[in-house]
């Protein structure tokens, strides 16, 4: 196969001195699916933004279709046939699919009276939809579509512009497990149409399912480009983090008889949770699996006391939690890791110290009225060292300056520092890299070893199977299945998650 893109010693140093890319050289062949993998901060996004003309490299040379390539603006890259689907969708919510797809080139459908011929526009979009065998209509409004369909619209937008080089930035991060499979098949369809696909992902399983070749980045440098058959998941994972650690995980057995939390017949006032009952034992990690939107968020909010119950009972060591607010529940010994660190788990504009003391300050750790600054500082420092949070020297910098993985480690560290009787963790490793994920998982294991219980709500089935002693599958707010380690069966769980069984 011919090469379509070649990068030669591409470097990028940001004005603040961060070296995001250091002399990265690799090439992409025409018609292949080329995966780019690496931890958070490895330089994947920087590289893709350079290819799409959003930022300029500091040095190095890029050749695209055998001519020198230095786009000053994404429109130039689009003109050359490069398309990018961003992790965060860029769609106008209030208008239709066809209007979004055509947006920016709607002049094509203007008649002599400068009126847009909508019928013609819809027809042209519909023909592309048909070619791609998608199940959306050009008349659908974006705001009414589920996430997976919105993503299809993004891809439609790219393909409509006669793109032959498509960059997909973490496309499966937003999809449910059963949607991922469809999506991967769809990517292969695109490849069959003769397009070249560059696929960025954290999830090695997907990478191995579809990629022809894999390029690995680590901290801004190129580790190498490999044919899929030359490598396996273990070796890729180790190349990504640069150590030879064992990344296989399995649940530990610290189970005790004592029941910590007993939940009976939960029904919340929004009506999503329907008659949910379970027991959490000391030393147990209990996983809640399910496709997003089947009651996971409600379960978290009910446990946190933000969502009221219309019926049901929750007891922590035989005393009821129902009447307690969040503070009361924290005092009773529950800690919370929320699924959205930026919106609910941290105050991004405030300092690392202020963020790490939040909540703990209610327990007199830093004085009764006056804040003991040195205690606060050393407390923050202990979290940072224990959880390998990579910050600068200055603990007064705002948390938003940290990378996502480091924010998450800070958040996890803060919650585990309570030594809680029960830890409720929702999507604890969403969007963090392999090393941080391992560290967070190990901290959960250590906590359960001390006799605490962990409720793990996660959309990442692999994570649950790596950690949990028991899995409850949520489907439409009900517990439809329960399995204990080691009798886990991915296909079986998948059936329950998608409602085929249960």
């Amino acid at each position: 196969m011919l090469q379509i893109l070649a990068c030669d010693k591409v470097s990028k140093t940001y004005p603040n001195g961060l070296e995001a890319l250091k002399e990265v050289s690799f090439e992409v062949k025409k018609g292949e699916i080329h995966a780019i993998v690496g931890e958070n901060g490895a330089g994947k996004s920087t590289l893709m933004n350079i290819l799409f003309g959003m930022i300029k490299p500091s040095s190095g040379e890029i050749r695209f279709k055998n001519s020198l390539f230095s786009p000053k603006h994404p429109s130039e890259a689009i003109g050359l046939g490069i398309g990018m689907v961003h992790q965060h969708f860029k769609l106008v919510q209030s208008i239709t699919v066809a209007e979004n797809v055509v947006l920016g080139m709607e002049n094509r459908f203007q008649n002599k009276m400068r009126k847009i011929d909508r019928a013609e526009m819809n027809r042209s979009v519909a023909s592309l939809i048909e070619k791609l065998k998608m199940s959306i209509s050009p008349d659908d409004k974006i705001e009414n579509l589920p996430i997976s369909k919105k993503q299809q619209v993004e891809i439609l937008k790219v393909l409509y512009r006669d793109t032959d080089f498509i960059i997909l930035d973490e496309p499966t991060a937003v999809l449910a497990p059963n949607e991922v499979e469809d999506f991967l098949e769809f990517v292969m369809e695109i490849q069959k149409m003769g397009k070249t696909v560059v696929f960025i992902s954290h999830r090695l399983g997907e990478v191995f399912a579809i990629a022809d070749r894999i390029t690995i980045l680590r901290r801004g440098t190129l580790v190498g480009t490999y044919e899929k058959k030359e490598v396996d998941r273990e070796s890729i994972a180790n190349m990504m983090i640069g150590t030879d650690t064992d990344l296989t995980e399995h649940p530990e057995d610290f189970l005790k008889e004592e029941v910590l939390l007993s939940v009976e017949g939960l029904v919340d006032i929004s009506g999503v949770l329907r008659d949910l009952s379970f027991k959490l034992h000391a030393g147990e990690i209990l996983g809640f699996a399910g496709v997003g939107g089947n009651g996971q968020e409600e379960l978290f909010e009910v446990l946190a006391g933000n969502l009221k119950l219309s019926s049901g009972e929750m007891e922590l060591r035989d005393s009821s939690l129902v009447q307690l607010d969040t503070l009361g529940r924290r005092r009773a010994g529950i800690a919370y890791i929320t699924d959205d660190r930026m919106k609910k788990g941290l105050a991004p504009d405030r300092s690392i110290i202020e963020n790490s003391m939040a909540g703990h300050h209610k327990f007199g750790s830093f004085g009764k009225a006056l804040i003991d600054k040195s205690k606060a500082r050393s407390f923050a420092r202990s979290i940072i060292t224990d959880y390998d949070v990579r910050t600068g020297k200055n603990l007064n910098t705002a948390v938003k300056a940290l990378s996502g993985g480091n924010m998450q480690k800070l958040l996890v560290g803060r919650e585990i520092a309570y030594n809680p009787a029960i830890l409720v963790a929702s999507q604890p490793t969403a969007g963090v890299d392999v090393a941080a994920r391992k560290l967070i998982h190990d901290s959960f294991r250590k906590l359960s070893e001390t006799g605490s219980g962990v409720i793990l709500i996660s959309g990442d089935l692999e994570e649950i199977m790596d950690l949990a002693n028991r899995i409850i599958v949520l489907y439409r707010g009900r517990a439809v299945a329960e399995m204990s380690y080691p009798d886990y069966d991915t296909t079986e769980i998948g059936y329950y998650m998608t409602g085929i069984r249960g």
Partner: protein
Amino acid sequence: MFSVRALSMRKIILSLLLVTCILSVWALIIWFGGESPVKGFLYILDGSLGNHYQLLSTLNKMVPLILAAAAVAVPAWTGMWNIGGEGQLLLGAFGAVLIGFSVDFGVGLVNIVVALIVSAAFGMAWAAWPAVFKIKLRMDEVVTTLMGNYIAAQLIAYLINKPFRDPRSPLAQTPYVKSSYVIPYLFEGSQFSATFFVAVSVIIILFVFRRRLLTGYEFEMTGSNAVFAELSGIRVTKMKLLSMLIGGALAGLAGGLLVLGMTQRVMQSFSPGYGFTGLLICLLAFNEPLLILGIAFLFSVLQTGSVNLQLFTSVPAEISGVLQAIMVLFVAAFKTFMVGRRDG
């Protein structure tokens, strides 16, 4: 408490540019008014800081400005907007008068303290209902506190016209407070009194409160991210209510100090818009107590100095309002550059 500091070259240059912009537009305005800008500035400085009478007058003028700005700042820490400083100040002033002409505890200091507490309580009451409406009914506090100003103004107008009108006076005003309630002037020929030190102490207390007290920390967390604060066990609605009550009390205190330290009664157009000037000062000071002190000083210099400007030139004293407004506009514009954008 632990402030997020990032002093970059960029920020220093922008700050200098900001000051240059403000000064040059000021110069232009004074020049349009028919005076050479350099002379104009000198008249303003001379009129506000030229001798110790003028300096004392400038400092005295700061008192209501400082407290009215603090009345906006404290609720802003928890993310609440208190636009009702004007009304709270009026109510507070009326509270002080009400006690001041009707009750006497025998000891002057006790009288003054009681009257100030009552004025703070009146201001607090006027801030309480918008806060409760916000928390219970989710009514936007910007609207309720703002409208509260007009209700308070009409209410006071009624009270000083009808039930509490001084019968011997041809004007609509209350009787004077008893002499034991008057906070004495400290210097011959100046209205400067201990009220200034009360205001400065309030600022120092607020500074310590915000940086060093756990409640101050909880205020800050509530304002920065309320969902997060709630999940951390901070009682967010309680914090918001409390901050609003403190804000109202501070505005009420401003009114009380004005009565006891200067006017000794409440009359028609008692406040020339202290509440709104306070709001501007607070915006310019980014809710930071120590900065409030500085900006209030600047505003006070402009106000007292512009009287002097009018005296010796053809430029009217109202120019101070224009100069203040220019400052607000530029700071608002520069804030986007300095805070709104992230590097990298």
